[in-house]
């Protein structure tokens, strides 16, 4: 009891802010759940595919936000876990194992193992050196995948079809697959939120704020950070499983350093540490990319400066901007 009271009050949001966030996230999920119905009015396959892809990246972004926003661990090699998840599907499928209930545990196990091994080295360093060591491990895995000539090497490998659930091809229909992805995103969001609010999450936040003090009161930063990396790696590997299923294709291109950079951009764009910001960030980044590329072939000339402005603005991403706006509104409402 006394230990609970000793927790910092700053991590607890005011009740109204919490209620606002809950209703916003609920609204977002309701809107996403209704999307397939709305999509029937337009180019159904196209919209559904686009949003499914965005939701998959949202899972990856949430996993990155756990270590980035709550552990201040800037991983520049997070796309490696997307690769691990998708290669787990690809390699198993090429040996005839298309059961997703087998593929997921293998992917998650492999992701956790890679996070354990690389985290044990990376976490010895800090700051820029940490960023660069995660980058190095990501590149290592990328080149390893390129050299896997038995599984397509540079060209990657095409999957025979979507994975099966208990031997049944349930994921074949795009709408079903969409809802499975949405459900997994919801589960990931809730679970990760629970983790950040748990004792473990608070210790992680404490380590971010002041590792020396946390160490002094008996929490070994290394252990907690490593555990967070393993959770994040395993979660992102799940996103990799979904990504392979969505595209029907697995290739080293999933784990280039640019992809890791994009994941970082999604989280920062959405606003770090809030988790729902990661969802918004992934959605808005991929939708923006798509919409701009429809308008002009030179879309990067617009997206690039936009990202620069977001960074220069320093609002803390979309989530931070929303918080600022809401605070202004609330203040105006009060006498």
């Amino acid at each position: 009891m006394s230990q609970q009271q000793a927790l910092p009050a700053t991590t607890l949001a005011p009740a109204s802010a919490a209620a606002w966030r809950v209703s916003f996230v609920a609204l977002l999920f309701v809107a996403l759940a209704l999307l397939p119905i709305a999509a029937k009015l337009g180019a159904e396959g196209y919209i559904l595919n686009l949003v499914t892809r965005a939701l998959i990246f949202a899972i990856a972004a949430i996993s990155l936000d756990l270590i980035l926003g709550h552990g201040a661990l800037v991983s520049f090699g997070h796309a490696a876990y997307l690769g691990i998840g998708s290669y787990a599907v690809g390699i198993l499928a090429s040996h005839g194992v298309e059961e997703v209930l087998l593929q997921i545990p293998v992917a998650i196990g492999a992701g956790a193992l890679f996070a354990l091994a690389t985290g044990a080295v990376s976490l010895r360093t800090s700051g820029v050196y940490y960023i660069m060591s995660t980058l190095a491990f990501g590149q290592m895995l990328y080149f390893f995948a390129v050299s896997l000539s038995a599984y397509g090497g540079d060209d990657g490998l095409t999957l025979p079809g979507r994975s099966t659930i208990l031997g049944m091809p349930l994921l074949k229909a795009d709408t079903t697959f969409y809802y499975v992805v949405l459900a997994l995103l919801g589960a990931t969001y809730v679970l990760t939120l629970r983790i950040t609010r748990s004792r473990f999450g608070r210790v992680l936040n404490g380590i971010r704020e002041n590792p020396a003090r946390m160490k002094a009161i008996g929490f070994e930063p290394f252990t907690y950070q490593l555990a967070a990396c393993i959770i994040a790696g395993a979660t992102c590997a799940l996103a990799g499983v979904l990504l392979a299923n969505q595209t029907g294709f697995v290739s080293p291109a999933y784990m280039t350093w640019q992809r890791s950079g994009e994941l970082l951009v999604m989280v920062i764009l959405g606003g770090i540490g809030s988790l729902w910001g990661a969802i918004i960030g992934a959605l808005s980044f991929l939708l923006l990319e798509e919409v701009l590329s429809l308008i002009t072939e030179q879309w990067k000339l617009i997206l690039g400066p936009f990202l620069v402005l977001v960074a220069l603005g320093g609002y803390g991403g979309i989530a931070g901007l929303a918080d600022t706006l809401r605070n202004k509104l609330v203040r105006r409402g009060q006498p």
Partner: protein
Amino acid sequence: MSSALLIVQTLNGLQLGILLFLIAAGLTLVFGVMDFINLAHGVQYMIGAYLIAMFSAWTGSFWAGLALTLPVALAVGLLLEVTIFRRLYGRSHLDQVLATFGLILFLNQLVKTIWGAAPLSVPMPDVLSGSVRLMDGLLYPVYRIALIGLGLTTALLLYVLINKTRVGMLVRAGASNAPMVSALGVDIGRLFMIVFGFGAMLAGFAGAMVAPILSVEPGMGDNLLILTFVVIVIGGIGSIRGAFIAALLVGLIDTLGRAFGPHLLRLMLDAASANQAGRSLAPMLIYILMAAVLFFRPSGLFPVKR
């Protein structure tokens, strides 16, 4: 594995190392002095290559092109510093990553828009074309030898500049403790600008020098940037000496690993699996080296004292 091949590959490795050093020198100073993660540094290298492609076509001479490229590369660097980067120095690493990532997207696309997506080629200067006979049956292009010589000369000049001049002294002091240098009455903003512009020019110089032996294309700096990061992390961020040694190490290990890795493994494994393992291990070697260095020395080989 003939000795001729060994010599050729060693020279190639040396040349890659020198190239990496030219890019890494600016980046490690920007990193070390300003604690600024500049992902857009590889773009400066690309811009250097494009500028010389354009200017040497205009003037019809590689050297005149180079003379125009250097000041323009410097100007581009200064322009970016004044408009964007100086607003990011005090920010979190994340903001820096986001902004410079956006800048990569923008500049890669801009280059594509201006010069087209097709690779350009830059004609080699006449004086340096042709090959030189190193030993019996071993010809090596003069241009590559000139590159190595030029890189070593630049390294030497840089060493003198950093260690023997007043500006160099300030830069070294800035790398150890920038706020203190500022408190002693040095205009740290101007120092940052000089370091940044100079680093951008060096990267542009590297791009211009390799343009005749590589194809000049959009995104050519992206993968080199990662190698450069490996170099400065192994060398110790902020250390020019570290960057030099690490650059040669990375250049040699990468080149020799790719060339001879399978041969060496064949001593232990059968031919087929040695080939396979060699092909997968060789590109990973430098990253393994970096992980090992960080494991034993978390601040690189030559950490800057703080």
